């Protein structure tokens, strides 16, 4: 219970930028499906979904392999149910799931200078903060406690600037 309480307190604090820590300061990137770069698709069999990952073009352009990701990086994880053949996900010719057009969740993580200062050291994910939206861009949860899972899980990738996919993608692309 200690970590969620810490997150709740962090949500009341002000970061160096003056905005309250937590999901409220992460803006929904309207138009990202056209304006961002889709860099990865991840099949998720246990949930019968496909996750599409996007990054803002400026971050992709300036990110360097092995370095912390640039301030201003915005990463999006977009959930789609997949096409089914009975109960089983249908696969394309390469064995990959086929996403339906429906978007069920839009998870955003954004990095800005000083954003992490509001969080205790055992919770902080660098200067990243997280937000969970629906397809229309409405915040699903504004309570910082609901984001404890994001902070906890991404801690395991501290050596990759707290990202599971994009830091690795840059390494594979540019190294």
């Amino acid at each position, binding site marked *: 219970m200690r970590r969620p309480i810490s997150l709740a307190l962090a949500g009341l604090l002000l970061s160096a930028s003056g905005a309250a820590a937590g999901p409220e300061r992460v803006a929904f990137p309207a138009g990202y499906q056209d304006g961002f770069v889709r*860099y*990865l*698709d*991840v*099949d*998720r*069999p*246990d*949930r019968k979904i496909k*996750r599409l990952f996007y990054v803002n073009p400026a971050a992709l352009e300036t990110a360097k392999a092995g370095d912390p990701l640039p301030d201003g990086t915005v990463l999006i994880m977009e959930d789609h149910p997949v096409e089914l053949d009975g109960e089983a996900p249908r*696969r394309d*010719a*390469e*064995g*990959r799931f086929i996403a339906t057009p429906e978007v069920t969740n839009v998870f955003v993580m954004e990095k800005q200078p000083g954003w992490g200062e509001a969080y205790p050291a055992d919770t902080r994910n660098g200067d990243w903060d997280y937000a969970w939206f629906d397809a229309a861009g409405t915040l699903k949860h504004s309570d910082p406690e609901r984001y404890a899972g994001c902070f906890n*899980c991404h801690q*395991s*990738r501290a*050596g990759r600037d707290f990202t*599971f*996919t994009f830091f*690795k*993608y840059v390494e*594979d692309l540019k190294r």
Partner: protein
Amino acid sequence: MGRCLALAILFSGLASAGQAAEITVGMAAADYTPATVEARVGDRLVFLNDDSVDHNVFVPTAGHAVDLGKQVPGARSELPLGKAGAFEVECVIHPDMHLQVRVVR
């Protein structure tokens, strides 16, 4: 458990050419065993959590990326190999777990 795993891997290796193989990968002591796998399109990786803690198989490589979800001790998960290429397998929970997979036609 180790003997069963070794037999499973040996059996996988005996699959005749052209016949899809099932290749078992263990997770004991938070290590993927074996640490490298050579397979053919149509084969299938079976991840057996023969460890005492949860694991979560995750492939971050573009074109092959998949998240098999949390796997409790004793549980199995499967990854069909439908595409040639090389990719890395990680664990969401344990960042030092790595498996290299190469799939050929």
